[in-house]
């Protein structure tokens, strides 16, 4: 028995040390990771030194790795809330100095962080451990053929089942929806985070607005679902990740329309796990993946927007930027004029209140 165990231990160590040379990046898989592979890894000096692994978000695995001291991931592609928590808990390493020294400045000499602020973002503690990736958004889209007459154009229309009858597709967790409900209730998009943060009862207002369409909702939980729902006519409009809608329009010849008003921009970061086995190589890759050029490059493969403001002009100048000579600016969520009608989700507020709101949202769904 003990002999056997030894053999296994040796075998597993051998396997572990064999694969330890490559920088392991935990990411979401699917088309998104494919775009990261093409835009970041394939353009890197040594593409074979980067390997991607799938995970489903959350910090459970990272915390287990860091606490036990056996870290196998180097980088994690994290949502901003996880970036904040991870950095606060020391699960991600604070690399403020490395970021200041090694990151590529924007074209006018602005630092990377200033470049992000130019895109409507505010500092949060995730910025100490992570570099920016993309803006992805919860956007409402529809098939124009489903509306022969007037077409919906605002959040108010999405919540108005009398003017535009039919079912709505909505996801099964709360982020993004709460903000949209506030816009539909008459709050100016740019003011939504402040109102949610500072006004007591703002959340009740959002849920009251959601109540008005509750009987007209089809819930989805995987990113491919809303497209099926709209395509099959089961719903007339749906919230979706804009990258999915973009892919359907660009690659599959669909003709979906977006309602940019009230879109909720969320952020995506690449964070360094504390005690990463290939720390220096991983930092080098982080710096490569956060240049404006690399971020603009990613937009070629998936229609998520660069989180650095200086990425947008690169795309504009390079049009047609997309595959097969198509313009992709029409699908970019964070052009200056679209930013004006968008909500930039407040990760610190979600990090504080997310667990509670999600419980409330689940209870609301179930009742």
């Amino acid at each position: 028995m003990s002999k056997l165990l030894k053999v296994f231990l040796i075998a597993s160590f051998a396997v572990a040390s064999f694969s330890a040379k490559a920088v392991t990046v935990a990411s979401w898989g699917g088309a998104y990771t494919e775009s990261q592979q093409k835009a970041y890894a394939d353009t890197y000096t040594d593409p074979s030194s980067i390997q991607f692994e799938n995970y489903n978000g959350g910090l459970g695995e990272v915390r287990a790795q860091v606490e036990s001291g056996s870290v196998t991931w180097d980088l994690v592609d994290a949502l901003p809330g996880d970036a904040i928590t991870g950095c606060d808990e020391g699960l991600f390493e604070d690399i403020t100095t490395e970021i200041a020294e090694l990151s590529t400045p924007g074209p006018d000499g602005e630092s990377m962080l200033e470049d992000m602020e130019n895109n409507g973002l505010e500092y949060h503690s995730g910025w100490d451990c992570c570099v920016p990736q993309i803006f992805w958004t919860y956007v409402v889209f529809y098939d124009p053929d489903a509306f022969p007459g007037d077409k919906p154009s605002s959040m108010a229309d999405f919540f108005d089942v009398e003017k535009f009858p039919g079912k709505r597709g909505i996801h099964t967790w709360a982020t993004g929806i709460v903000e949209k409900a506030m816009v539909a209730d008459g709050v100016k998009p740019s003011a939504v985070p402040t109102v949610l943060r500072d006004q007591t009862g703002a959340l009740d207002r959002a849920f009251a607005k959601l109540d008005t369409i509750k009987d007209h909702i089809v819930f989805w939980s995987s990113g491919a679902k809303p497209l099926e729902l709209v395509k099959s006519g089961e719903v007339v409009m749906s919230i979706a990740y804009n990258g999915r809608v973009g892919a359907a329009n660009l690659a599959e010849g669909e003709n979906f329309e977006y309602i940019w008003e009230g879109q909720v921009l969320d952020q995506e970061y690449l964070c360094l796990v504390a005690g990463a086995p290939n720390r220096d190589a991983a930092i080098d890759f982080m710096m490569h993946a956060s240049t404006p050029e690399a971020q603009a490059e990613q937009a070629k493969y998936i229609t998520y927007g660069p989180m650095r403001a200086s990425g947008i002009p690169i795309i504009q100048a390079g049009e047609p930027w997309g595959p097969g000579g198509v313009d992709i600016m029409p699908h970019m969520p964070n052009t200056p004029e679209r930013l004006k009608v968008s909500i930039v989700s407040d990760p610190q507020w979600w990090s504080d209140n997310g667990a509670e709101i999600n419980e409330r949202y689940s209870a609301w769904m179930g009742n």
Partner: protein
Amino acid sequence: MEVPISTAELLTTDGVPLKQSLKKAERKNKIRAFLLVFPLLLFIIVTFVMPIGDMLLRSVDDTQINTVFPNTFSEFKKWDKEKDELPPEEVYKALFEELAYGDKIQVGRALTRMNYSKSGWKSLIKNTSRAIKKAVKKNEFPDSYKDFLITANDKWADPTYWYAMGQMVNFQTPIYYYNAIDMTYDQDQNVIRQEENRRVYVQTWIKTLKVSVYVTFFCLVLGFPVAHLLANLPLRYSNLLMIFVLLPFWTSLLVRTTAWIVMLQQQGVINGILVWLGILNDDGRLSMVYNETGTLIAMTQILLPFMILPLYSVMRVIPKSHMRAAQNLGAKPATAFWKVYLPQTIPGMSAGGLLVFVLAIGYFITPELVGGKDGKLIGSWIAYHLKTTLNWGLCAALGAILLGVMLVFYWLYNKIVGIDNIKLG
């Protein structure tokens, strides 16, 4: 002739009393038997029982935060809520110092914990901490720590945050168990119900039980006739038909779940065939998956073999003559079935029923994949807290309660069927 009966003790050849010798031999046999079982027993205890015990400990453990804020908490306990609206100066001072000199990572970890007791702790402490560190760097120590903290963030003047701290001041806490059934503490540490719009766990427990009961019921209804048929057919037919039961039993859960999605979805096989046959028109496709229907259909099929197999093994040994005898004595077939046959299958029904119920109650893969918005059973919440919110205490408490429910049924099963009577196929 009388045989003289010896009253002396029987002895073995080496002079030891037989009784003693037998006892010794028996003890030796016992030890031998135990030694054979010992390696596996040890293995299961180390790799399985201890992890579960560890999880149970985690469900009441609040050590981490208590090592981060020991002075704050001990001063906090002295606060007389009746007399003062806010805690005394010493609490503010202790907190100031523990935030100023505390290890960043440990404090960060404690923040995550504090945020479970009240949303908003995270940014409150983080902002305050920043202000404190700035002051300490400049060597500016305030005269009144209370005023300093309240100036840094006016939430420190809000007693509700302080009340919430009361949940955390002990090394052991039952709060996660209360949370797991939608209860919490009020400001005086009395147990009260959670705010109405946050009550999600009781609802989920009920849903989980409901799904399990339905699935058990459907399995019984579908499984009983099939087991009866298998038990009464000649062996060469029943062995053949048994494959229909055993094949799903041997096939991966994920394969079966996938198969059901492919069958049931809107663009799936069943809808496709119905449209092709002209029974449905293209926009009238049924939605059979990503809702409770899907969960029930898939789980029933997945668990059905666990009902059929125990039923079958019980029915197999019920003599056919019983039914015939009852009918010969004048009972109608229905009466004979009801009065004679059915009672004899009760051990099988209860074994199958409990097995299906216990398995169903812990399922989460299938409901999560096919259940849509209704698919979040208690198992999903356990996984969610483990992976996403990092609320491992609540995760462990939910697991412990589920385990408790399960053990009750396990115990019942043992009473009714006996744990060593489990048969596989």
